């Protein structure tokens, strides 16, 4: 009964308070939207949930008071907005915050993930993950924050990164 063509240009917008507890709601919504589209399989649906989770987490953290583990939600913070557009067999998700913006080209460089030094950095994996999962990624500065625009295509199985990776990389210990 689902008319796929009817979904062309459909927009779903979700406005959420800038609190960590609601990131799961953003995941639920994107998951439900993508599940309806027969072009996107379960794995791609998981990709979108993860990318949306990372982008919403960043948006919310940018509006919190304090930094890192000690940051707390600011009851006065403006909401974040997730806007999803399903069109032309693609899904575009834009997440807007009022967190003051940042320079995406000036991000701290972390040591290689396999270097023992990398263990000194808990963070810094969010944007790399989004970069790998989205087919297109853009950070648009706004007056008082950022809009992250991500575009996702359904991936054909042949093009997918193979889970488990190269022989020998899976399950190996650095110990």
């Amino acid at each position: 009964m689902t008319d796929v063509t009817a979904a062309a240009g459909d927009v779903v917008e979700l406005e959420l308070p800038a609190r960590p507890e609601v990131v799961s709601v953003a995941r639920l919504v994107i998951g439900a939207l993508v599940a309806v589209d027969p072009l996107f399989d379960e794995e791609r649906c998981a990709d979108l949930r993860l990318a949306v989770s990372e982008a919403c987490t960043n948006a919310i953290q940018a509006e919190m008071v304090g930094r890192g583990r000690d940051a707390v939600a600011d009851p006065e913070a403006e909401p974040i907005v997730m806007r999803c557009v399903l069109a032309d067999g693609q899904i575009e998700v834009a997440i807007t915050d009022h967190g003051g913006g940042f320079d995406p080209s000036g991000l701290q460089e972390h040591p290689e993930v396999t270097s023992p030094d990398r263990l000194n950095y808990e963070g810094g994996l969010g944007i790399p993950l989004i970069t790998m999962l989205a087919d297109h990624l853009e950070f648009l500065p706004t007056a008082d924050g950022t809009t992250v625009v991500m575009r996702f295509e359904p991936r054909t199985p042949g093009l997918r990164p193979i889970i488990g990776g190269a022989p020998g990389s899976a399950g190996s210990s650095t110990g």
Partner: protein
Amino acid sequence: MDLRLEVSERGDWSVIEVGGEIDVATAPRLREQLIALVNDQRYRIVVGLEGVDFIDSTGLGVLISGLKRVRTHGGSFALVCTEPRILKVFEITGLLAVFNVCSSLEEAVAEDGGEGDEAP
């Protein structure tokens, strides 16, 4: 919003079985649990991820900090994970090569603690 943590002992290993979703809202509880174990001088820790439906970079960060804390004490840190959806997140971040990812709890606790060798 939903994270379940169950802690038990298995020989000289402490086992944290995690269930639900590990994200920015729930990861702090896992971090606190890991810190509590290390404070109790439990330096051989397995985190079971078989019940985990979702993990994002915040969750990965907490596991990285757990590995680091345990290493500082010359201990061992292992993960149990077989779910392709979750393994993929470790894979694409390159963390499969950083963690000792086992396919069962038995395999994890059978380790001879060789990991400790490298600790400072």
